[in-house]
C-alpha cells in the first residue's frame, strides 16, 4: 500500500495572503482580496516537491485559536489532522501575527513560518532579522512574497526542516513574550506617510469616508454603464449581427429537420422573440448580460483588492445599526449586487443568527443580481430612466422597511462592529485578471447554460402549445391581481430556475411602463434562483431558509399589489 501524502495546513491571521500562497503552490485558481474573510470554506489541493506528494489545506484566517463560533471551531479542528503547518505571517505586522504563531507552537506540530509581504517591509521602513527570529522560535522562517512569487521554492525546501517550535508561553504572558521577541528581531525606521496612507486616513475620516463612498458609488455605476454599453453597442452587437447570426442561420438552414431548426434558431426575425437556443439564448446571455457582468466584476475586483470595502463598512456602520446590523454587513450586500451565492457565503463572518437573517433579507431584497440588473437596464431603457429608477428605488425602500420591521420583531441587539482595516494595496493587474477569469469562467459554465435552458423550455412550451394551459391558471391570477400579461406565467415559473432569465424573458412582451415596473419588482423579489436558494439552505439550514424565502415572497406579492394599485389609482385620478 502507498503511504498517504503528508498533509500541510496553511494557517494564520485573516488577510495575510494564505489563499494566494495556496494558489501559488498548488496552481489552483482561488479568489483572493484585500480584506479579512475572503476564504470562508476549507480548500484542499496537492503538490509535489522532491518526488514527495503533499496534500495542502488552506484554512480561513483566525486571530486566535481560542474561538467561540462553531465555524471557527471547525477551522481549529483542522489542526488535529495535519502533519505540518505553514504559518503565514504578515511581515508588515509581525507583532500581532506572532500571537497566532505562539498559539500554534503550543499544538506541538512541526511548522515553517512564512514571512509574507516581505517586499512591502522595505518601503514601510521595517527591518526584520529573520535568521534570528528562526533561532528564537526554533523553526525555519522564510521571507516570501506570494504576490511577486518569490521565496516559494525556499519555503517548500524548508518543509524538510519543519520543526516543533521550542518556544512555549502561558496565555497571560504571551503578549509580553512577543514584545520581547520583537525588540530582538525588528527595527522600525521613521519615514514619511505614503500617498496610500494619506488616502487611507481620508477614507477613514467621517466626512471623507462619506464623500469617498458616494464618489465610489457614482463612479462604479458610471463605469459599469459605460463599459457595458460600449461593449454591447460597439463590439458585441455588430459582431452578432454581421458575423454570428448570418453564419448560424446559414448553417442551421442546412439541417433538414424542421423541429431542430425551430429549437435552434426559433421562429421569426425578431431576435428577442424567436426563442431559439442559438439566437435568443446566445443573444441574451452573451450580448446583453455578459458585458454588464464583466464590467461589474472588473470594477468590484479593483475595490476588493485595493482594500476599500472594509472602509465602506466603517463609514456605513451607524446607518446599518439602525436596521439592526453593523457595518460588516455592507460587504455581503455589495457582493450581492454581483451574485447572491458568494454574498450568502460571506455572511459566515457574522456572529449571531439574528444578524445573519437580517443580512439575508437585505441581500435578497435590496437589489437584484448583476445579470438581472443588466436586463432591467436593457429593457427599462425602452421605457424611461424614471421607470428604471422606480424599480431600484422601490426595491431599496422595501428592503429597508422589511429590515426595520424584522429588527423590531426579532429579539436582540445589534452586536458591535469589530474589524481590522487592512492597509491600502495597489491591486496587482495579474491577480485581478486571474480573479476576473475565474468569475467569467463560472458565468459561462453555470449561468449561460441556465439561460439557454430557459430559452429552450419556453420554446418547447410554446411549440407544443402548453403555454396556453399554464397561462390560464397562473396567468389569469397575474392578470387579475397585478394587471400583467397572462403569458408571463411561464416567466414566473422559469424565474425560479434562474432569476436573470426571468427578467430577460420579459423582453418579448409589449408591456406598458407600469407593467414593466410591477413585473420587474415582482420577479426580483418573489423567489431566489435555484443556485442562491441552495446556497441559502447551506448557510442557514432549510427551516431558516424557507422562513426567509417566505418573507420575501410575501413582500413581493404585497409590494407588487400595492404598486399596481398605486398606478391604477394614479391613472384613475388623471383620467378624471
Amino acid at each position, binding site marked *: 500500500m502507498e503511504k498517504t501524502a503528508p498533509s500541510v495546513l496553511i494557517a494564520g491571521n485573516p488577510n495575510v495572503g494564505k489563499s494566494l500562497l495556496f494558489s501559488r503552490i498548488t496552481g489552483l485558481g482561488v479568489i483572493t482580496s484585500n480584506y479579512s474573510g475572503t476564504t470562508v470554506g476549507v480548500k484542499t489541493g496537492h503538490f509535489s516537491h522532491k518526488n514527495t506528494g503533499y496534500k495542502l489545506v488552506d484554512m480561513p484566517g483566525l*486571530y*486566535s485559536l*481560542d474561538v*467561540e463560533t462553531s465555524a471557527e471551531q471547525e477551522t481549529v479542528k483542522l489542526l488535529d489532522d495535519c502533519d505540518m503547518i505553514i504559518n503565514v505571517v504578515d511581515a*508588515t*505586522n*509581525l*507583532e*500581532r501575527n506572532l*500571537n497566532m504563531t505562539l498559539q500554534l507552537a503550543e499544538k506541538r506540530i512541526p511548522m515553517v513560518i512564512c514571512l509574507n509581504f516581505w517586499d512591502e517591509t522595505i518601503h514601510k521602513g521595517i527591518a526584520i532579522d529573520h535568521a534570528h527570529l528562526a533561532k528564537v522560535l526554533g523553526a525555519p522562517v522564510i521571507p516570501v512574497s506570494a504576490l511577486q512569487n518569490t521565496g516559494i521554492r525556499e519555503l517548500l525546501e524548508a518543509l524538510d526542516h519543519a520543526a516543533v517550535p521550542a518556544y512555549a508561553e502561558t496565555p497571560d504572558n504571551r*503578549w509580553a513574550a512577543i514584545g520581547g521577541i520583537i525588540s530582538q528581531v525588528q527595527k522600525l525606521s521613521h519615514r514619511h506617510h505614503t500617498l496610500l496612507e494619506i488616502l*487611507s*486616513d481620508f477614507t*477613514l*475620516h*467621517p466626512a471623507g*469616508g462619506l464623500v469617498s463612498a458616494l464618489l465610489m458609488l457614482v463612479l462604479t455605476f458610471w463605469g459599469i454603464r459605460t463599459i457595458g454599453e460600449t461593449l454591447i453597442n460597439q463590439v458585441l452587437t455588430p459582431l452578432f449581427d454581421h458575423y454570428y447570426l448570418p453564419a448560424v442561420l446559414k448553417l442551421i438552414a442546412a439541417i433538414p429537420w424542421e423541429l431542430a431548426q425551430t429549437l435552434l434558431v426559433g421562429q421569426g426575425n425578431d431576435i428577442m422573440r424567436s426563442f431559439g437556443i442559438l439566437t435568443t439564448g446566445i443573444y441574451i446571455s452573451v450580448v446583453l448580460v455578459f458585458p454588464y457582468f464583466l464590467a461589474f466584476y472588473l470594477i468590484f475586483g479593483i475595490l476588493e483588492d485595493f482594500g476599500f470595502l*472594509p472602509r465602506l*463598512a*466603517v*463609514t456605513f*456602520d*451607524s446607518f446599518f*445599526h439602525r436596521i439592526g446590523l*453593523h*457595518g460588516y454587513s455592507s460587504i455581503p450586500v455589495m457582493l450581492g449586487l454581483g451574485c447572491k451565492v458568494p454574498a450568502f457565503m460571506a455572511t459566515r463572518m457574522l456572529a449571531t443568527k439574528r444578524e445573519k437573517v437580517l443580512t439575508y433579507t437585505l441581500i435578497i431584497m435590496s437589489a437584484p443580481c448583476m445579470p438581472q440588473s443588466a436586463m432591467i437596464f436593457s429593457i427599462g431603457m425602452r421605457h424611461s430612466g424614471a421607470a428604471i429608477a422606480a424599480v431600484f428605488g422601490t426595491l431599496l425602500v422595501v428592503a429597508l422597511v422589511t429590515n426595520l420591521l424584522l429588527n423590531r420583531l426579532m429579539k436582540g441587539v445589534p*452586536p*458591535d*462592529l*469589530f*474589524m*481590522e*482595516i*487592512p*492597509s491600502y494595496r495597489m491591486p496587482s493587474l495579474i491577480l485581478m485578471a486571474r480573479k476576473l477569469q475565474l468569475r467569467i469562467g463560472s458565468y459561462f459554465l453555470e449561468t449561460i447554460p441556465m439561460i439557454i435552458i430557459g430559452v429552450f423550455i419556453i420554446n418547447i412550451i410554446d411549440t407544443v402549445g402548453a403555454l396556453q394551459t399554464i397561462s390560464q391558471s397562473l396567468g389569469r391570477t397575474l392578470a387579475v391581481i397585478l394587471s400583467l400579461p397572462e403569458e408571463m406565467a411561464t416567466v414566473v415559473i422559469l424565474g425560479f430556475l434562474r432569476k436573470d432569465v426571468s427578467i430577460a424573458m420579459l423582453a418579448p412582451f409589449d408591456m406598458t411602463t407600469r407593467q414593466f415596473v410591477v413585473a420587474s419588482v415582482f420577479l426580483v423579489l418573489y423567489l431566489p434562483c435555484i443556485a442562491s436558494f441552495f446556497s441559502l439552505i447551506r448557510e442557514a439550514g432549510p427551516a431558516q431558509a424557507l422562513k426567509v424565502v417566505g418573507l420575501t415572497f410575501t413582500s413581493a406579492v404585497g409590494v407588487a399589489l400595492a404598486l399596481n394599485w398605486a398606478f391604477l389609482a394614479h391613472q384613475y385620478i388623471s383620467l378624471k
Partner: protein
Amino acid sequence: MEKSSHAKQTGTTNLVNLDKDHPARIIEIQGGHGLRERLNAMGLAIGSVIVKKNSFYGQGPVVIKSGQTTVALGHGMAEKVIVELIGPS
C-alpha cells in the same frame, strides 16, 4: 451608563471620549471574558499602547491604531475600553 469623566483632568477615559491622535495605554476592559478575548487576539490587551484615529458621528465606530494594526470598534465596544493618557496633554 454614566458619561466618562473628563479626559484632561483625570488622565483616564474610554476610547469614545479619548482625543484623536493622542497616545494612550489600555488599562481596563470592562465587560465579559468574550470581549477581552476578542480584543486580546487582535493585539488589544491591558498595557497595549493605542492611538485613536477617528470616531464616527451618531454612535458610530471608533478607529484606533495599535502597532501596525488598524482596527474599527463599534461604539458600545469602544466605551468599554478604558485607557490612560500617555505623555503631556
